[in-house]
């Protein structure tokens, strides 16, 4: 209710005053439902901020014949590992322009880590299991966050200045971005309306059914 009120009024609230600001992004679909698994990121317009990939690889696990997590935002130069915690082999691949790769059939911890060196969306699939799908969104900015089930993503540590706020989602129907300004005095809440295409993921039938997949 409170959130709806906030949305209706379109209020921009200053929550905290410090040297750096935080943008709270509220991602909603046109009906007002929260949108999860959206990558919210800002890019500085005044002075580009350098990215620092983490030293350790980010893990995208295959468990119960699904990729976890479904969406993984990383910065350019990040390495990703694909540990297989299932008892069956997987064959991870991507033919996306930002990163084309494959890790042939394996089980357990794969020795290989994949370096994502170009920005852009990367779709992961498994050659064995058609329904397995996951996304890596490779960013050229250090300021990003992923919305949770409540559609909220907090991007913290932003120096005051002008930014472009953008949202990405695997089913994004059209690019969503806007220009925002971070004041020295406080944080902002950005409510962003996101239109998604229908979810066309293959629905996985129960194993016991044996009827296959639709």
């Amino acid at each position, binding site marked *: 209710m409170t959130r709806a009120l906030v949305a209706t009024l379109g209020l921009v609230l200053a929550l905290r005053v410090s040297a750096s600001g935080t943008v709270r992004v509220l991602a909603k679909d046109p009906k007002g439902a929260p949108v999860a698994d959206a990558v919210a990121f800002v890019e500085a317009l005044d002075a580009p901020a350098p990215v620092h990939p983490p030293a350790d690889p980010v893990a995208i696990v295959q468990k119960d014949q699904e990729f976890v997590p479904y969406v993984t935002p990383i910065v350019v130069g990040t390495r990703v590992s694909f540990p297989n915690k299932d008892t069956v082999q997987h*064959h991870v*691949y*991507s*033919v*996306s322009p930002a990163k*084309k*790769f*494959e890790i042939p059939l394996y089980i357990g911890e794969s020795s290989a880590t994949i370096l994502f060196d170009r920005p852009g969306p990367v*779709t992961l*699939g*498994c*050659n064995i299991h*058609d*329904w*397995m*799908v996951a996304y890596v969104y490779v960013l050229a900015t250090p300021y990003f966050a992923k919305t949770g089930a409540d559609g909220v993503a907090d991007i913290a540590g932003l120096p005051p200045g002008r930014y472009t706020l953008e949202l990405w989602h695997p*089913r994004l129907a059209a690019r969503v971005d806007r220009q925002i300004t971070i004041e020295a005095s406080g944080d902002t809440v950005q409510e962003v309306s996101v239109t998604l295409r*229908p*979810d*066309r*993921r*293959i629905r996985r039938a129960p194993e016991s059914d044996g009827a296959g997949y639709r």
Partner: protein
Amino acid sequence: MPQFRRFGTRLLLLIAGVVAAAQVADYLLVVRANRRNAIDRIHENLAKGAALFSRRVDARLLELSGRAALMSDDYSIRQLFLKDQPDPATVRSALRSYSVRMGVPFMTLISTEGARIGDTGGPLPEAALRPFEDLVQTAAAADDPKATAFARLPSTSEDGKVFALLVVPIYAPKPEIVAWIGLALPIDHRFAEELKSDAQVEVTFYYGTGETMVPVESTLPGAAGPRSAADLAESAVKTANVSGEPYVTAYRPLLPLVTHGRAAIALQRSLGAELAPSLPLERFLLVLLIASLVAAALVAAVLARNMSRPLRSLADHTRVIAGGDYLTRLEVTRADEIGQLATAFNQMSEGLAERDRVRDLLDKNVSPEVAAQLMRDGGALGGEEREVTVLFVDLRSFTRLSESLPPRDVLHLLNRYFDRMSSIVETQHGIVDKYIGDAIMAIFGAPVARDDHADCAIRAALGMPSALAGLNTELATEGRQTLSFGIGINTSRIIAGNIGSSRRLNYSVVGDGVNVAARLQDLTRMSQFRADILVSASTLTSAKRRYRVRDLGAAPVRGRDEPVGIFAVDGEE
């Protein structure tokens, strides 16, 4: 309407006409129903054929899209996309390999941007790809990213063929589309032949870009001609001659069509072939029609004869009756109306004969003039006053004669005598009023009035002696006694008319003048007159002619105050 003189002709025409109308109507109705049934059956077949065509195309495309989906999920096809720039030769050979697996002559791979990644080459050159690119746009916008359409490929070439196109996505993985597979299913002669054998209809595929559409493929070789584009724009059923034989044709546009122009399928079925099973029935009906017409004509002729023959004999008999023959009778051989009519005719003849007999008797009992008047006036009582001349003639000494003869001979002698005298009276336009014993009373000037009644009476009297002389000669020859008579004639105004009761009456005259005539006849016996013929002065006054007479003076008459002038007549002057 013409009037036929003969009843038979009319009956013949009526019966034959009714039978002909019924039979012809029957025949035409059957022919029409057969034709309508045939056309309905053809329509049904054509609709089934059209539905079968759609189903076959849809089923084939569905099957192909299933196979393409399998192909798109194939590991090896993804291998092509793991490279930044797929090797064109490898893509082509891979697609050829897939096209063999799927049984389609042509395949192409199109990027999500609509650019061609590769194709199988072969029957379709690069120029044929444009329709696929258009179709990718349609498929990408669809809920279920897939699209089918008809196209003429290559669309720029004159000898292009009609294909059913299909584009399905390649997922890596679903729902991420990395490229599209395009397939072309030829709607060719083989397709047409298969459709023909399954649906029992002739199949022609049309294509055209301008005003006319030409057959691209047909199971009716050389028979299907160009059609106007307007004809094939919508689904329609038409009947038209193909090689002189009527065909019912159902046109269905092939939609959607992604190339320029129009494509249509024409399903045809021969009306003659469809009607063939009902032809024997129609021929049988025709024979039945003619046979029943002939039978009706024969029956009508017999009926007419049966009707007109008795009618004609009735007509002939009517003429016989009109001719005065009342004795001939019609033979009555039947009990129906005509028989009743004949009986009525016979009864009428009998009635007429009866009347004739009565008339004859009347003529004999009264004079013809009186009989005619009775027939005319119906014998009403009453009379009129008029001037007539009455003549009495009486045999002398007949009482004595009759005593010496048997009664039969007397009667015979009298009749001979009366016959001759009466004949003279009638010759002189008089009537015998009555026979009184051996006397005759005759009247002149009634009932038919005449001016010369006095002359007629005198002339009759003058004629009678010679007639009697003739009879006397015969009697003398027979050795019998001869006869002599006296005649008295008087003219006066008397009452003439039917005298008597309403049950029995006589035409006669009454009056004083009758007695005068009788009296004059009596006077002839008197020796002082010595004359056979005595007339009164009034008769001589009334007569228009002149006669040789002798004035015998006046004689008193009973019942009269004044004596009557009497003259003896010796002859004409």
